[in-house]
């Protein structure tokens, strides 16, 4: 019984390590192909498809996150007479953690799933094989444009998220908590430094890379049939979100020491 459990755990660990190794190899191959001139029109198409189309859902999510954070902090801060810190706390939380992480999660759910489903269905319908037979490297043709698009677009989405989250906080602080506009904005200018925003943008680049590479890897390794595509899509979203949360901790550790 005990042996069976150990065996099962061992199998899972080996499988996990195999997959991790393959993801690293895919990342290495993709970075190798970055030395060649990318297909600009493909990158732009992916930027529009993966980035611009995600903007409404990112804005909506972050707007309400900014509002609820302010709702919770303002009430407590006012009790201790620290209402002059609310704007700064919301802006720092937004720039350093909430905007990049939540944007990453939203994009992983929307874009990561779309990348895996698209590449996965190409795999099961032999379109990837057709590319290879036509002497086209699928990594160069499919993975490189998606990686570039995600690494460029997720930070841009985070800039919008930073702004809209802080505006959400402003609305609640002024209209609900009774904090003046000047106090809220002044607090932001006092507490927030450029590094807070830059750190969030660096995180966003990493998250974009994670979403693209995991999405492409799961698509390229999709099992047979529609069920395989469905399973790969779910695995892609789950893996990306887990990796975003784990890497976020270590990135915070390095970026905000």
């Amino acid at each position, binding site marked *: 019984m005990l042996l069976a459990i150990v065996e099962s755990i061992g199998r899972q660990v080996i499988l996990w390590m195999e997959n991790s190794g393959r993801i690293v190899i895919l990342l290495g191959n993709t970075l190798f192909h970055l030395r060649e001139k990318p297909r600009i029109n493909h990158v732009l198409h992916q930027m529009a498809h993966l980035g611009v189309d995600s903007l409404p859902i990112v804005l909506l999510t972050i707007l309400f996150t900014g509002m609820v954070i302010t709702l919770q902090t303002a009430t407590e801060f006012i009790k201790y007479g620290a209402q002059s810190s609310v704007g700064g706390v919301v802006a720092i939380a937004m720039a350093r953690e909430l905007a990049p992480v939540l944007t990453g999660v939203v994009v992983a759910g929307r874009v990561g799933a779309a990348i895996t489903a698209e590449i996965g269905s190409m795999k099961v*319908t*032999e379109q990837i094989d057709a590319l290879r037979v036509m*002497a*086209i490297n699928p990594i160069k043709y499919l993975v490189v444009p998606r990686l570039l698009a995600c690494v460029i677009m997720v930070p841009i989405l985070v800039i919008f998220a930073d702004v809209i989250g802080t505006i959400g906080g402003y609305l609640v602080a002024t209209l609900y908590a009774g904090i003046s506009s000047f106090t809220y904005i002044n607090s932001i200018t006092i507490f927030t430094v450029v590094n807070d925003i830059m750190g969030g943008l660096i995180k966003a680049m990493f998250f974009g890379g994670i979403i693209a590479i995991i999405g492409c890897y799961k698509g390229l390794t999709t099992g047979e049939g529609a069920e395989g595509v469905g399973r790969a899509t779910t695995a892609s979203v789950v893996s990306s979100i887990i990796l975003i949360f784990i890497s976020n901790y270590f990135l915070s550790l390095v970026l905000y020491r």
Partner: protein
Amino acid sequence: MIKLENISMSFHGKHILQGIDLEVKKGETLVVIGPSGSGKSTLLRLMVGLLRPTQGEVWIKGQEISRLSEDHLNTIRIGMGMVFQYSALFDSMTVGDNVAFGLREHTAMTEAEIHKIVTRNLRMVGLAGQQDVMPNELSGGMKKRVSLARAIAIRPEIMLYDEPTAGLDPIMSGTIDRLIMNAKRVLGVTSVVVTHHMSSAFKIADRVAMIHGGRIIEVGTVEQIKQSENAVVQQFILGLKSPSAYIRRRSEMK
């Protein structure tokens, strides 16, 4: 042109192909027949480097390809075309873009020149004026014909066909057979066709090879295959229940 030497292929410990030796001469059409799951499509995939053999060597135009890198392989693949069992058209592109794909990627042709070739190829496969249609609007037979038009667009020296008539009605199967013969006549291509449609096989083949249980059990001209004494070959081409049914029938005729 194509030479397989002592090829074996296994997936997860299961032997798909064992000790395959096969040669296809320049300009020849070799048809590979055999029951489903006998390794026919695997053989085709080995020839174009989509799979690497567990053992043995694959020679294309005098170059051993089974150990080449993907980038190196691509230089060989430019001279090859393949029609897939389910067509494998790029579903995000129009029919015209599918046919033009290889030309845009591998040649310095102008859009006007590419348009001319696309129009000519689509006319050749009986799909003139369908450039702007999306693949999901086409029937199975039409997709196969677009796939053929795409494959021959860059004028390959070698054409591989994976079950080109599978799932098609007899009239459409006949059309595809004629297109395969036309491609050979007009372009002089060397062709390998995997099929289990005997009427197609006998119509288009210069030689026929039969795979059974991962091994080639018979190779010969159409007449030689038809006259084969091998009971498994006769069972397959006559559609009998078992090899012993052929042996019984033969002894009754005697």
